[in-house]
């Protein structure tokens, strides 16, 4: 029996403002509030609200048959809390139906998995806590930013207790193999891998409303038939995309939501079910390990990390950013840590891409990759100066850790000693009282 696994990504970056180098040292606020508010409001209105409402309707009509998986980045959640809380309400309502699984991911939607295992682990744990807090679920499946995956990342995920991870069904990894099976991590066999069927996913998210496409107009019947007529043993169809596919990438006027809503009914007629990633991980056996020595992702034709770290500019920005990772983790300055999250968002690196693949990349306020790089490096310059102000450069990280430990130990000691003083004082006081009574 075939099963469809729908997964949608929700993420909004906190857009940086135009920040000139002469602001370094004097201006520590890096964000364009107006741009952020208008972007999030627009996405919520045009895409998130109608799309989530449709999903909710589908779940209710399906009476338990239709299921879906969602992930919301921590940064995205913060943005929604600020500018579009109605989306969070909708998410909570979908959560109540019990037919929605929330996946974990790095809180910042950043590339920490490629830079620092410690930062990555911390971010994922923080995301888990946030999901627990909001939806009461303990995530069992992980999706990394941009579906980045490699053997190494798989190991990290397994060590954090995840049962499965999502990734891309990239041709250069799968070759003759099909993405319609469950695989497992080659170095941590306990971690199962769900691979995206990029053809079926992109049919919806990239091509649906394109009149030049051969299959245009695509009807839900045709689409579900494609799935139903897959070879018999290919049972798992993973359709992953950004939720903005509905309403932003493909306008609602193309009736894409009607298309989506028709899928569960038609699937039922053909005996196709729906599953969440953790159900698939539980019920299905892996057909074998998948070796992924180099990072793989769902971005661009190359399906690797090159859209974020493809050129020297991106790599310098990335290296500089993570050079202060340890210091930031030592700090407990809330503002600094928040900025750290926002600066990590992978989008900031994508704006610096110099790839010429015919697709005009989205660059936000930036006119060119150099502009994006310059602005980011200016902000990073200020950020790093703030980190340095807390922890001078001439002390190395280990020494710093040791000093910090000493301070913490001393603090604990002080608390203990204070408690002792209190109790001794109290004793002394009662003694004094007693002796006073005696004298009476």
């Amino acid at each position, binding site marked *: 029996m075939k099963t469809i696994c729908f997964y949608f990504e929700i993420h909004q970056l906190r857009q940086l403002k135009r920040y000139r180098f002469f602001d370094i040292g004097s201006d520590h606020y890096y964000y364009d509030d107006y741009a952020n508010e208008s972007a999030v409001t627009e996405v919520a209105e045009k895409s998130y609200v109608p799309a989530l409402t449709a999903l909710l309707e589908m779940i209710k009509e399906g009476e338990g048959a239709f299921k879906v998986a969602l992930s919301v980045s921590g940064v995205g959640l913060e943005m929604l809390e600020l500018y579009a809380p109605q989306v969070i309400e909708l998410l909570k309502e979908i959560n109540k139906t019990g037919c929605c699984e929330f996946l974990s991911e790095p809180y910042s939607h950043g590339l920490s998995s490629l830079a620092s295992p410690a930062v990555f682990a911390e971010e994922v744990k923080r995301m888990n806590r946030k999901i627990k807090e909001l939806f009461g679920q303990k995530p069992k499946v992980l999706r990394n930013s941009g579906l980045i995956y490699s053997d190494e990342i798989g190991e990290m995920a397994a060590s954090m207790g995840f049962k499965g991870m999502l990734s891309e069904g990239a041709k250069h990894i799968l070759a003759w193999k099909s993405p319609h099976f469950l695989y497992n991590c080659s170095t941590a066999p306990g971690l199962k891998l769900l691979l995206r069927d990029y053809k079926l996913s992109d049919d919806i998210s990239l091509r649906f409303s394109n009149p030049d496409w051969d299959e245009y107009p695509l009807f839900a019947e045709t689409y579900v038939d494609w799935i139903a007529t897959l070879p018999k043993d290919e049972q798992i169809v993973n359709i992953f995309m950004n939720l903005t596919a509905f309403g932003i990438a493909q306008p609602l006027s193309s009736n894409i939501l009607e298309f989506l809503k028709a899928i569960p009914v038609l699937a039922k007629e053909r005996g196709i079910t729906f599953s969440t990633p953790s159900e698939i991980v539980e019920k299905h056996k892996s057909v074998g390990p998948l070796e992924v020595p180099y990072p793989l992702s769902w971005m661009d034709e190359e399906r690797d990390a090159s859209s974020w770290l493809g050129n020297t500019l991106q790599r310098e920005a990335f290296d500089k950013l993570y050079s202060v990772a340890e210091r930031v983790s030592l700090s407990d300055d809330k503002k600094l840590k928040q900025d750290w999250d926002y600066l990590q968002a992978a989008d900031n690196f994508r704006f610096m891409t*110099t790839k010429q693949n015919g697709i005009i990349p989205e660059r936000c306020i930036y006119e060119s990759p*150099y502009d994006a790089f*310059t602005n980011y*490096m200016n902000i990073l310059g200020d950020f790093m100066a703030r980190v340095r102000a807390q922890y001078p450069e001439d002390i190395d990280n280990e020494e710093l850790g040791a000093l910090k430990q000493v301070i913490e130990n001393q603090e604990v000691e002080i608390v203990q000693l204070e408690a002792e003083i209190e109790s001794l004082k109290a004793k002394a006081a009662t003694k004094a009282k007693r002796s006073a009574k005696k004298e009476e």
Partner: protein
Amino acid sequence: MKVLMFGWEFPPHISGGLGTASYGLTKGFVEQGDVEIKFCIPKPYGDEDNSFLRIVGMNSVPIVWKDVDSSYVESRVGKIIRPDEYYHYRNHVYGDFSYMNTNDLGCMEFAGGYPQNLHEEINNYSIIAGVVARAEEFDIIHSHDWLTYPAGIHAKQVSGKKLVVHVHATDFDRSRGNVNPTVYAIEKNGMDHADHIVCVSELTRRTVIEKYHQHPDKVSTLHNAVTPLSQDILDIEPKKIPNEKLVTFLGRITMQKGPEYFVEAAAMVLRKTRNIRFCMAGSGDMMNDMIKLVAQRGIADRFHFPGFMRGRQVYECLKASDVYIMPSVSEPFGISPLEAMQCDVPTIISKQSGCAEILDKCIKTDYWDINAMADAIYSICNNESLYEYLKVEGRREVDNITWEKVALKLRNLYEKVMA
């Protein structure tokens, strides 16, 4: 294919981009093989590169019949013209110009360059063009810039061949909008008479269509390119000052080039950091104002005016630089950033420059946006990766912009015009 070209300057005696472009274009064109170019300039010095085309010195083409013997011609202008050529031209003298100020050979003298009596020289040039057009055989006429448009028109009327005018700049670029009516009239007249107009950028093409009221179908864009650097220039050792960065502006210091924006951006950069030096090479009518402005901003210790540079000096200066900047207010094309990129120098150009249309591996800002300009300078000087990227990729990009490709396009254009 035989082409009669009218130009005003030719390397090594050049004062701007016109000469460089004339050289590159003709050289690229001749490499196609079956091409013959006669290139007329007012005053050759005899050391021009004659190997691939024939330079016609207009100052040695007679317009008045004089009885002189061969050895005398040889001794007077032998460096520029052979006596038999002189006689050939003399046979085509077409009117009585003895009232003009001619010399012992029946020729008119040119001061060369851009003298006070430029309009007179333009007129003389076009009179001589009548002789050349009668004497020479050619398939098409090509006039470079407004100075030679009257000559082109004259040659067209004499020969009945098609005329292509090449717009390297318009007076709107040179004057920030306050056009000289005489110059405008010559430019417009040339364009009106032309069978086709070639512009060095889309920016210029739009000016030609909008300000000179030309039909868009008659106007096409042919971007300039660069000639590969010779080995001895490639071998110049870059002289860099340790722990200091050098930002260079190289060009005429005039309104059109936006030098004041460079000074203001430099002042902003220097407020934040001191290890950057600025250099404004060249001369021009705004030079003294710029020196004053630099003093007013209090950055004279870091801002240098080395004066006009030529030949090898230009490349020595470029190679010593870490950033090249061209903040032109209105630049029809602007070859100099391409030359900087050839010398491995990261480049910042204004969006109002024609070369911005074909360059990608450089930073583009609005000429008035001194904030963005300062930011770009600071970024290149402080981020090694950006510097390296623009240096390497910029070089690669510019190495692919060749005159051969441009000449091929020109060939197709000629064939379309002649058909």
